[in-house]
């Protein structure tokens, strides 16, 4: 049977891709941010997942506003990165696991999560940067991937509670897959940031730290907030943190905290990285 080894949360900021591309990881601005990735990289190396499911949001590469699925699952053999218009060089394509994708799609829909299935899906920096930050810049990726896109761009976007429940359903879906497959789930995005309006530049370190604590130990806590309350505390783009809950729902309630790292500011953002490991 498939097994969820654990979950990981991290930011997917465009500037991270630029920093890697320009080899800036040891520059003063970036050093603490990237050095804090090392323990997570080591954990991931030892976890040896066969498949990484990346929960992220598209920023106008694959989805335009004409059709905006709330939850969209990649069901393809391969996922291609492409020109996003602002100069980041596209990365090598990512192999998929189409059998697992369709199993997850069937299971989620049976559990009343009526997701959108995508047999072609371009993946943008939201998907690519976490993989690149954790695996490096590679021509051949050592792991299969499945993108799970959440709409956090055009409101109405799903609630934190819905994301946590989706994660719980995703966990059941993976664990009912008959093949021995090791799975790690990335919940990406956030934390606090606001890109536009007179309140642009908002970073809420205190709330970010509280979120990290609670998402690790008591994720239901986060579901008390409406999306308006989340945006009030963390900024309009801070709403991305709801995607962490998809990962959190899919791992065990008592998952062990392996690593916690927080740095701010990175670009406009409070950047959190956390590794949770299932206990068997």
């Amino acid at each position, binding site marked *: 049977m498939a097994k969820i080894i654990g979950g990981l949360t991290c930011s997917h900021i465009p500037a991270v891709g630029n920093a890697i591309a320009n080899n800036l990881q040891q520059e003063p601005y970036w050093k603490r941010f990237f050095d804090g990735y090392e323990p997570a990289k080591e954990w991931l190396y030892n976890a040896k997942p066969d498949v990484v499911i990346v929960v992220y949001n598209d920023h106008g590469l694959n989805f335009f506003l004409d059709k905006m699925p709330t939850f969209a699952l990649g069901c393809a053999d391969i996922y291609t990165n492409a020109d996003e218009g602002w100069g980041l060089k596209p990365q090598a394509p990512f192999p998929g696991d189409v059998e697992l994708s369709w199993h997850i799609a069937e299971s989620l829909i049976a559990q009343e999560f009526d997701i959108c299935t995508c047999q072609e899906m371009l993946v943008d920096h939201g998907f690519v940067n976490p993989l690149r930050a954790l695996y490096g810049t590679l021509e051949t990726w050592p792991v299969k991937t499945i993108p799970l896109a959440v709409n956090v761009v055009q409101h109405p976007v799903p609630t934190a509670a819905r994301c946590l429940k989706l994660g719980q359903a995703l966990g059941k879906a993976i664990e009912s897959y008959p093949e021995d497959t090791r799975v790690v789930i990335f919940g990406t995005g956030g934390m606090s940031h606001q890109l536009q309006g007179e309140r*642009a530049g908002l970073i809420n370190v205190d709330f970010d730290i509280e979120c990290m604590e609670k998402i690790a130990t008591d994720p239901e806590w986060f579901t008390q907030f409406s999306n308006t309350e989340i945006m009030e505390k963390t900024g309009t783009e801070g709403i991305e943190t709801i995607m962490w809950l998809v990962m959190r729902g899919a791992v065990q309630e008592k998952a062990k905290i392996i690593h916690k790292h927080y740095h701010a500011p990175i670009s*406009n953002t409070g950047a959190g990285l956390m590794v949770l490991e299932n206990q068997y």
Partner: protein
Amino acid sequence: MVWKKHDYEDIPGTYVFDGKIAHESYNINKMLFTFNSEECRDEFEQEPATYCDKFGVTGDFKECVVQKDFLRMLRLGCNIYFMAKMAIPRGTSVQDAGAAFQGITTEEFQQQLQDRAEGLIEKLEKAGGYWNG
């Protein structure tokens, strides 16, 4: 025929990209979406006004595109991610846009971000269990 009021409209200095705004700015965002393609970027560069016409980008929207007035584009409801596809290659970063909203320089904006993270290490130590080198 009314747009429902939302509680997030009361958050100061904040414009939530919702159905109403997305509807009003649909054509301009659709045009900006094409800038994922180099061919489209080049076509736009040749004749910006003609390119706007092709997508039904008119009035104030067209004016600010032609003038490359990114702040006004955002104020009119352009989505930040789609706007970035036009602004970043022209030397205006998302931080420049954020600074412009506040009427401060980008350096001041960056300093503000740093200030908001002041006391970070102490806070992480107090919370406990965080990596710190």
